[in-house]
């Protein structure tokens, strides 16, 4: 028998305690490998997959997050284990184990867990990466799916990194044991519990802090959001900690005083225990509450962003296709060719405007487009906008804005064909020109002036300017590409389509949403596990306590009820508090988005979905923890 054998026995003997820790480590390894298998995939690295680069960046960032996350998670879990095992280390010290031996033992245990976690994580990760690569191929719209292979660098990185992590944390953990304090180590588990001290003022302060923070969040707007965010988060976090440490105790003490409540059912047993449990775990509970509020809020924000994205695209592109070109071909011919291409792809055009114009060299890069008044009014009519009526020698600049035109005119000079015309110009709000105005200034001139200008115009200066709207614009990507190549021969001034900008952003949002989901799920599972460990790190005392209760005649069923109630509070109080926080954060978000017509509920429903998801995970944990815990508590009592 060797020390290593003893370590192995130890891990085996603590199977149940290690189960959640192990499962979460496996999950972290799994997710990390999935992402790495894409990031380090030879096809992606060598650039065979177009557009993969941006995705890679995003995934790399989420990998960093996962590693940092796992680091703290493993660190926390290990120190929880060591705390639960102080007695064991005290005893080993007394039996003459040197600090080095115990350190080696702890590190061996961590290596064991790390090795098996990596093995199982990779065992699951490799087959699952096939699904992941398929999904990625689909999302990126690559024609041939990314090959499924075992990505060796990803395997090496994953196993290397996680093993290193476990060894490192094992080493840090060993600092917690000191060979000089044997008595303290031995008595750790039976240290008398001091009744929690409780101050009404601190409890009130905690509510004030939370209330103040949330109140600020409620009234914050687009201008104040950024400066308010950090202070509000800090104040609310502090308040939440004090809430769990003090106010929760206060509430329970209040309940304890009400004998009618206390002596009913099993409340006495439940409450008196819960006071200790809440106080001792205040830090963990508060951390879970605050973090889950952050994660739920982030998830809600990501999905809100995704939902507003369609609106954004529609707003940026009032028409599905707009372009301007100049050349020898007559506008009607161009228009009919464009229509033909659209028809080939069975795209139904619901609105078509083709305008002739004249390009004059001017301050604007591509020159100013002059449009005759009649042409413009045709367009305005068909799109239900206000008609323009110009006096002689008057012109209107079209500006892409909503609003009422004002009557003021300014004299402006237009130079064409060697002559300078001074025209009284006013601005004319016209949102439908939205995009083209950024490259061409659009100016409507009265018909007579246009005529006289056009007469002497060179063919190349005549331009066609067109806008189309169609319902099934999402299918128009191919047609748009062909139209673009057609127009390129005609000296294209500019072309913008709704579908191209939609496709470009669709990938990014889908990706953000997916990464968000990964990280969120990982977080929820980690936080569930943390609560699970906390529970199991106190099981020795609890076992004794419940053993005594049983001897006093409390039935197992009743003990089960007491345990369930306590665990219910333990597992769900943080989400409840976190959800409230998140509600206020979402209110801030909806304040900011109000100009975009997102009411509070519209924004909050995404957060609600995240809360629901979190609750489901938490219910699973609650049930699993309760089962394992009750079994463990009664295991020895039965022997």
């Amino acid at each position, binding site marked *: 028998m060797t020390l290593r054998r003893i370590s192995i026995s130890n891990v085996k*003997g603590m199977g149940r305690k290690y189960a959640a820790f192990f499962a979460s480590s496996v999950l972290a390894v799994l997710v990390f490998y999935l992402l790495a298998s894409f990031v380090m995939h030879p096809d992606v690295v060598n650039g065979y997959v177009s557009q993969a680069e941006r995705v890679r960046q995003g995934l790399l960032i989420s990998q960093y997050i996962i590693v940092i996350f796992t680091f703290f998670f493993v660190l926390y879990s290990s120190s929880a284990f060591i705390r639960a095992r102080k007695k064991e280390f005290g005893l080993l010290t007394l039996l003459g184990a040197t600090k080095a031996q115990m350190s080696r033992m702890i590190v061996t245990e961590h290596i064991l867990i790390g090795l098996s976690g990596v093995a199982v994580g990779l065992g699951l990760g490799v087959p699952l990466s096939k699904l992941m690569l398929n999904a990625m191929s689909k999302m990126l719209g690559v024609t041939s799916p990314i090959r499924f292979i075992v990505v060796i660098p990803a395997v090496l990185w994953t196993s290397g990194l996680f093993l290193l992590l476990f060894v490192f944390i094992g080493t840090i953990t060993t600092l917690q044991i000191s060979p000089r304090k044997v008595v303290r180590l031995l008595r750790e588990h039976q240290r008398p519990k001091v009744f929690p001290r409780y101050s009404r003022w601190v409890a009130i302060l905690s509510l004030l802090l939370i209330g103040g923070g949330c109140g600020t969040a409620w009234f914050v707007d687009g201008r104040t959001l950024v400066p308010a965010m950090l202070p509000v988060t800090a104040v609310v976090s502090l308040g939440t900690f004090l809430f769990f440490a003090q106010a929760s105790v206060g509430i329970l003490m209040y309940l304890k005083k009400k004998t009618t409540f206390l002596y009913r059912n099993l409340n006495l047993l439940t409450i008196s225990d819960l006071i200790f449990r809440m106080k001792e775990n205040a830090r963990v509970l508060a951390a879970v509450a605050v973090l889950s509020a952050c994660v739920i809020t982030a998830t809600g924000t990501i999905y809100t962003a995704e939902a507003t994205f369609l609106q954004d695209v529609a707003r940026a592109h009032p028409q599905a296709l707009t372009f301007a070109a100049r050349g020898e071909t007559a506008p009607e011919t161009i228009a009919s060719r464009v229509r033909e291409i659209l028809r080939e792809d069975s795209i139904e055009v619901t609105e078509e405007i083709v305008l002739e114009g004249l390009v004059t060299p001017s301050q604007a890069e591509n020159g100013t487009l002059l449009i005759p008044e009649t042409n413009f009014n045709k367009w305005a009519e068909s799109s239900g906008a206000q008609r323009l009526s110009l006096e002689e020698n008057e012109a209107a600049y079209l500006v892409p804005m909503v609003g009422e035109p004002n009557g003021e005119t300014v004299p402006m000079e237009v130079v064409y064909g060697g002559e300078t015309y001074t025209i009284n110009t006013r601005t004319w709000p016209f949102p439908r020109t939205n995009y083209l105005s950024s490259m061409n200034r659009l100016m409507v001139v009265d018909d007579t002036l246009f005529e006289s200008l056009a007469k002497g115009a060179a063919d190349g200066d005549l331009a066609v300017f067109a806008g189309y709207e169609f319902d099934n614009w999402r299918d128009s990507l191919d047609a748009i590409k062909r139209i673009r190549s057609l127009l390129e021969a005609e000296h294209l001034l500019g072309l913008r389509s709704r579908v191209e900008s939609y496709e470009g952003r669709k990938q990014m949002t889908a990706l953000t949403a997916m990464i968000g989901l990964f990280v969120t799920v990982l977080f929820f599972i980690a936080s569930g596990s943390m609560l699970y460990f906390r529970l199991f790190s106190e099981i020795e005392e609890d076992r004794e306590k419940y053993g005594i209760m049983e001897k006093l005649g409390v039935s197992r069923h009743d003990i089960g009820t007491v345990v369930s109630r306590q665990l219910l509070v333990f597992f769900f109080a943080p989400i409840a508090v976190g959800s409230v926080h998140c509600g206020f954060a979402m209110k801030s978000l909806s304040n900011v988005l109000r100009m975009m017509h997102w009411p509070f509920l519209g924004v909050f429903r995404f957060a609600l979905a995240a809360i629901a998801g979190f609750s489901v995970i938490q219910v699973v944990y609650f049930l699993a923890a309760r089962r394992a815990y009750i079994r463990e508590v009664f295991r020895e009592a039965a022997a």
Partner: protein
Amino acid sequence: MAILTANKLSRVYGGKRSVPTWALRDASLTVNEGEFIGVMGPSGSGKTTLLNLLAAIDTPTSGTVEIDGVDISTLSDRDLAIFRRRKLGFVFQDYNLLHTLSIQENIVLPLVLDRVSPAAIQSRLSEVAHQLGIQYILEKRVFQVSGGEQQRAAIARAIIHRPALILADEPTGNLDSKSSAGVMKALRDLSDRWGATILMVTHDAFAASFCERILFIRDGRIHSQIHRLGSRESFYEDILSSLRAQGGDGLDASQDKHQ
């Protein structure tokens, strides 16, 4: 020759916020090599406290403990570990077995920590297991065996490495007279054959009669002692009469069962 010397040991619990408890007051004693000493006294008189201080499990409020002439508070971590591993065997009143390990693994722990060869460990294990009559529970887990069996496993762990100094806190507290005799014979054997020095706390006059000297402790002070002069049986009578003289404190209810 003195192997263990305690000079004016005191241990005060509590203080500051609560009323201080003097668990031990100026206790001095000298233990010679190979001696087998019993410590008796009423519950709460400071016996466990004394043992903890002697084993350097706890640190005294004042006073010193010297082992082989060296003040243990001056030992380095490493020397302290080596002392505990090679020279000390400690039996806890509440056994302190590790629940994650089997009985056998618990017992061999001191040898494993000292990197003894597996073959030697095995032979030592079967020897002590036989002596204490626990061969049949070696593979079991801690929670699968009775309190008395746990106690014997804890004793086996304390003697398997044949320590020079054994400190035992009520090693027979949970045992019937037959098992108790087995334990006492094992300790006696260690003392006779290997020259081990033993300090044992007990409430049981029968167990105490295996000792050569009994220290009586009360209210944290060592107030008297008696030596064994003749046979074990006559010493047993001496112990009972001393206890009676002290007003029956520390007398075990089971004292008469051995007569």
